[in-house]
């Protein structure tokens, strides 16, 4: 559905993306993850036919984004990062206008359906200029969904939404992603983890790595880490746990709990549990704290991402 080979884009002397290669299948939700200025928006703009690449090729929905741009644009739904909208129009009129540009046969019905999908039915006749940022975001999303596109490209779709809406929109994206191809960009790692089948990490215009969120985590975490908490004072707890065979390192935390690690696949938690109960501790909590995607992300993109 999306096939990108050696995509490069220069803005004057600045290289925004460099030899980007990836693909996305039908029914797949691919997350584009990267720090500011990584080249996510640039890549998406090329895929949606907004601008041609300096080098490389991109096939979207079976058509070349440069030589068959109109065919691509017919089949792609796009939510640009800045969520551009005609603020002087009502939600309905705006969506009707965009639907007409796509020559949708049952335009009004499609508009109503899209408005309902993003939960804006009660604001349909209101002016876009009077909507809040999150509501505008949803209008932009409705626009991208109007023609039931084969490929959906969403540049930071949940930014500016309230928590309830974030949940709804993610659910909507997951629903759409069952049959169609979705490429979305985000800085929010839990979002990528939450909705994406596959994550591409991009930094400074280059794809650093790509994998499923689970594999990414597994691949980068050398050992499994567990946090353990018992009731009351537990000065000897760390010592007790370290006696268990297979426990690789034990660390006492400032809040009285301890963290220990063991090699992946050699789960020692049952042994640890047994021994501390035998020692007479009251076990309150024992849970894995695997490296978060945040940490993986920072590791992969290096310290530059924080500067």
């Amino acid at each position: 559905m999306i096939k990108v080979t050696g995509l490069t884009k220069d803005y004057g002397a600045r290289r925004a993306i460099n030899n980007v290669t990836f693909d996305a299948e039908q029914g797949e939700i691919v997350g584009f993850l990267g720090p500011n200025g990584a080249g996510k928006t640039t890549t998406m703009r090329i895929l949606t036919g907004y601008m041609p690449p300096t080098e490389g090729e991109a096939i979207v929905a079976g058509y070349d984004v440069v030589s068959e741009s109109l065919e691509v644009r017919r089949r792609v739904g796009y939510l640009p990062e800045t969520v551009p909208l005609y603020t002087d129009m009502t939600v309905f009129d705006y969506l009707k206008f965009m639907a007409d540009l796509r020559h949708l046969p049952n335009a009004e019905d499609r508009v109503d359906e899209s408005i309902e999908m993003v939960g804006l039915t009660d604001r349909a006749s209101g002016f876009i200029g009077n909507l809040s940022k999150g509501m505008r975001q949803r209008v932009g999303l409705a626009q991208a969904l109007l023609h039931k596109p084969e490929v959906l490209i969403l540049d930071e779709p949940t930014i500016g939404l309230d928590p309830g809406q974030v949940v709804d929109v993610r659910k909507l994206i997951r629903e759409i992603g069952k049959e169609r191809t979705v490429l979305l960009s985000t800085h929010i790692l839990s979002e990528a983890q939450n909705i994406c089948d596959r994550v591409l990490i991009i930094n400074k215009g280059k794809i650093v790595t790509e994998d499923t969120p689970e594999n990414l985590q597994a691949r980068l975490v050398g050992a499994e880490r567990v946090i353990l908490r018992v009731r009351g004072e537990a000065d000897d707890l760390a010592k007790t746990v370290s006696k268990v065979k297979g426990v690789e390192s034990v660390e006492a935390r400032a809040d009285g709990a301890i963290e220990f690690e063991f090699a992946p696949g050699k789960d020692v938690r049952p042994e640890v549990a047994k021994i501390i109960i035998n020692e007479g501790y009251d076990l309150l909590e024992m849970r894995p704290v695997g490296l978060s995607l945040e940490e993986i992300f920072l590791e992969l993109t290096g310290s530059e991402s924080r500067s």
Partner: protein
Amino acid sequence: MKNIWTIAKREYDHYFSSPVAYAVAFTILLVLGIIFALNIFYYAQNSFQSFGSAPDVSSITGAFVFMLVLSVPALTMRLVSDENRMGTLELMLTAPVRDAEFIIGKWLGGFLFLFTLIAITLIYPIILNNLVSPGIDQRVMLSAYLGVILISASFLALGVGISAVFSNQIAAFFVTMSTFVFLWWLVGFPAGILPSGGEIFQYLDMKTHFYDSLNVGVINLSDIVYFISLIALGLFTGTTSVEIRRWR
């Protein structure tokens, strides 16, 4: 083709919520109304002394085109530059719309708005026709109005083209205005001064294609070609500059 219409319609509707468009419409209709009233007054005075010919529309259409030089830049300045500023150009350029359809739609929207204004001013010749006894010269009226329509279409095309070049609407306004002033007043100058080769400047001079021919009832093919060339030039400039934007 359908896209051109869809875009034109949105643009046309937009004018009816735009204070600039109302200001332009009000000024044009007011000034033309005053000129019309003066005309009638003048005619009434002279007819008692029974000299002078029946008034025709050329004074109204003549003033109309002059007003277009001043007001079209205000109508076209935001057409494309504003889309660029608001970011909606990204929306248009990623919708299944050809760049030329987008530009022609913008132009057509502006044209339909001006055409509405032109249609409203038709009440002046109609009143005039009923006031004077043999009626006004219909041929002059039709050709003069054809002239107004052609000039409107040309100015709008140039304005849309210039609006697409600039991302700032104020810049677009001044460049558009300068272009009109140049075509209307300046470009003809060398024709009178140069010993030879002045014909080209003569041909480029817009007012000669109107005042000396269409506005007095003469329809020349060369005048029509002149205006159609300007329309094509403006629309081509607009389309090309949108394409260039993509490649930057």
